[in-house]
């Protein structure tokens, strides 16, 4: 690690929501700066040096992203983010190959943009299999083998889940897809830069990447599209034919450069950062477990990125806990359009009961999380969980030995 350890202003809460978004690494901002100022050209302008310079920046970034995932730079196209990449990958291949194959396989714990895209394709006449997950959040490979057929056009399974951080067995999934001749798309928004990814070794045909989840800027992402054997897509955005025709629109040079730089830093520091974060995470988990009974970790601990914890604090409603720990920025599920505070469908898919799902927090640690922050967070969490449990009628009942399931609750 370099000298950057603290980028938070003192009046800001401790940021523990690294799966929602990550702060921009100052080194990334530095790399972007010239492209915001004097290297402002349109990379599509071929008639002068401003254009060439911008193009050089974009192409270097493309190479940096490709290297992170073991791809060729020609296989990387820039998009506006992982949501667009996921939409384009799934809709794009499904529509291109629809005359031959009309079946899609995905899982019930995918990001909303994958599930919504699949639902849309169902309306268009495709059949979609939503694979369940096991209690640890991982798919059952035998089940996958059973459902993938010679009619399956694409299998879309996320590399790392955004709520519980579990890592799906990508290489095994890739092997199954290759055997059946189905394309393998993976939403790697939460995985890229955090775990080693290799599109060759894992037989990945399409991969979505997000800039702002890896300490790069928002508004930029990438889609890896395999060239050999060639994967073809129907584009979603038509126009000037940029990005091999898959994605038209003037490329935002500073954002591309930022994504490239972020990818390079992530690759260089992946091992050291994983070791550091694992230590911090274990410290946080053990610290909480030592002081609080009846807390439950959701999702597999071993096959999980180091920067994620998702914990149910039984008998304490998650939102009230979030309101209490004012000095900590965490999330009670995934940050999308957060007005909906329904219990997470991901946790429900693991078999977590609704009353427990309501007590869950996602705690995301990352590049700028310090030991001191972890200690402070543990103290705050413990203090507020204890306080709220004293206020909780459910905790009281549990202490009195009343099984809350024996009570006939009014549904509302």
């Amino acid at each position: 690690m370099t000298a950057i350890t603290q980028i938070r202003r003192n009046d800001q809460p401790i940021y523990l929501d690294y799966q929602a978004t990550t702060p921009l690494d100052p080194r990334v901002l530095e790399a972007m700066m010239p492209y915001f100022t004097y290297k402002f050209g349109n990379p599509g302008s071929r008639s002068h040096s401003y254009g060439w310079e911008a193009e050089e920046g974009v192409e270097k970034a493309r190479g940096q992203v490709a290297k992170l995932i073991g791809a060729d730079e020609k296989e990387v196209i820039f998009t506006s983010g992982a949501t667009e990449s996921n939409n384009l990958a799934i809709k794009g291949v499904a529509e291109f190959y629809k005359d031959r194959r009309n079946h899609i396989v995905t899982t019930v714990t995918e990001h909303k943009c994958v599930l919504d895209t699949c639902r849309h394709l169902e309306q268009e006449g495709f059949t979609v299999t939503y694979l369940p997950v096991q209690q640890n959040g991982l798919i059952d490979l035998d089940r996958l083998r059973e459902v993938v057929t010679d009619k399956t056009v694409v299998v879309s399974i996320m590399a790392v889940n955004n709520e519980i951080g579990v890592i799906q067995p990508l290489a095994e999934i890739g092997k199954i897809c290759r055997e059946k001749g189905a394309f393998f798309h993976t939403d790697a928004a939460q995985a890229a830069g955090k775990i080693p990814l290799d599109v060759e070794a894992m037989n990945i045909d399409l991969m979505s990447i997000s800039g702002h989840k890896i300490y790069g800027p928002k508004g930029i992402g990438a889609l890896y599209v395999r060239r050999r054997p060639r994967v073809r897509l129907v584009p979603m955005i038509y126009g000037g034919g940029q990005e091999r025709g898959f994605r038209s629109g003037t490329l935002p040079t500073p954002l591309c450069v930022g994504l490239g730089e972020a990818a390079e830093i992530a690759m260089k520091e992946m091992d050291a950062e994983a070791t550091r974060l694992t230590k911090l995470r274990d410290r946080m988990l053990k610290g909480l477990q030592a002081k609080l009974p009846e807390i439950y970790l959701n999702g597999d601990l071993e096959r999980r990125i180091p920067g994620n914890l998702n914990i149910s604090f039984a008998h304490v409603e998650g939102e009230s806990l979030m309101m209490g720990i004012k000095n900590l920025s965490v999330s009670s599920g995934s940050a999308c359009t957060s007005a909906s505070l329904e219990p997470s469908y991901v946790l429900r898919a693991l078999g977590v009961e609704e009353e427990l799902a309501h007590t869950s927090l996602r705690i995301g640690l990352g590049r700028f999380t310090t030991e001191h922050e972890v200690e402070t967070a543990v103290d705050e969490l413990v203090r507020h969980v204890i306080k709220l449990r004293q206020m909780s009628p459910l905790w009281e009942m549990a202490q009195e030995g009343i099984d809350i399931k024996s009570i006939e609750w009014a549904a509302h």
Partner: protein
Amino acid sequence: MPAYPDQVYLDHNATSPLRPEAFDAMVEALRTGGNPSAVHGVGRRARGLIDKARRQVAARVGALPAEVIFTSGGTEANNMALAGSGRRRVLISSIEHESVQRAVPDADIVPVDGEGVLDLAALERKLAASDEPALVSVMFANNETGVLQPMADVARIARKAGALVHCDAVQAAGKVAVDLHGIGIDYLSLAAHKFGGPTGVGALIVRADAPFVSNRFGGGQETNRRAGTENLSGVVGFGAAAEAARGLDPTLRDRGEAALLAIAPQARVFGAGASRLPNTTYISMPGVPAETQVMALDLAGVCVSAGSACSSGKVHRSAVLAAMGIEDAEAGSAIRISFGWNSQSGDIDRLIVAWRDLYIRVGQSDIANARAA
């Protein structure tokens, strides 16, 4: 800002450098960060920044904040409008940007006249040819000629025929006044980087009661009309640029144009007889290929372009000039000179000198050869 004092940038229609107001706002947003959808304080502050930008952009084009959908740029906005209106019958002008043309390959094409202005009678005729409700897509100003289209008439004619109106205002916004409700436009596309905002961000403005269906699925951002985590710094820069952009003055352009025509009497400014953007000159130096001119001007430190800047390295014949009925030979010698918010009088002097030098130099060879042939 210019780190290359020896360069004069006159290609603002391709992209414009960032305005300092946008730059400052963006750097602040990049430093503070946050996911605008997260409920904690960091997220709420990010949401506040997005809301402010939404008001700034809406105000610039006479729209309501709730009508603004932020996109990744003008191309996406055009695609969204054309796919989202629900109208299958689409009429477009013959000079639309590729992002409109390619999004609706089966569209009915409405011609333009020799000055590059839409043929309104043809539009009226074509609309009357069928009862099927239509969408009319006409750009506010052309990216190559800068010719302004008669949007108020387009809207009036479309309205009478029960058609919806989409307007690609990517080149016009921030340079001339654009008023969505005043004109009666249903869908309006904007791109920040054409008037001093950042690349990678734009907007589709959808009039409150116009139909719209999104084709992009996900987290429900932009009130379910455009999924994906918001490009926070981009949106903030867009807002700041929209507030700062107060339109351009044609004085520089007019002086430059007069000087170029005085140097090369056989040169021609396309669309000169029509109302144009105050910043664009599309001019031919007959007998000298556009590529030659562009390269020579670049060597002299003046950045211009031959047509529009998109993906292609290849310089192809301008479809816009072809639609205006300009012969290939003349079209092949056309270059686009476009000023911007930070252009200065001295930039024009440099252009005039470079153009004159080129004219004198090739005057003895190419032009003579062309005449001899």
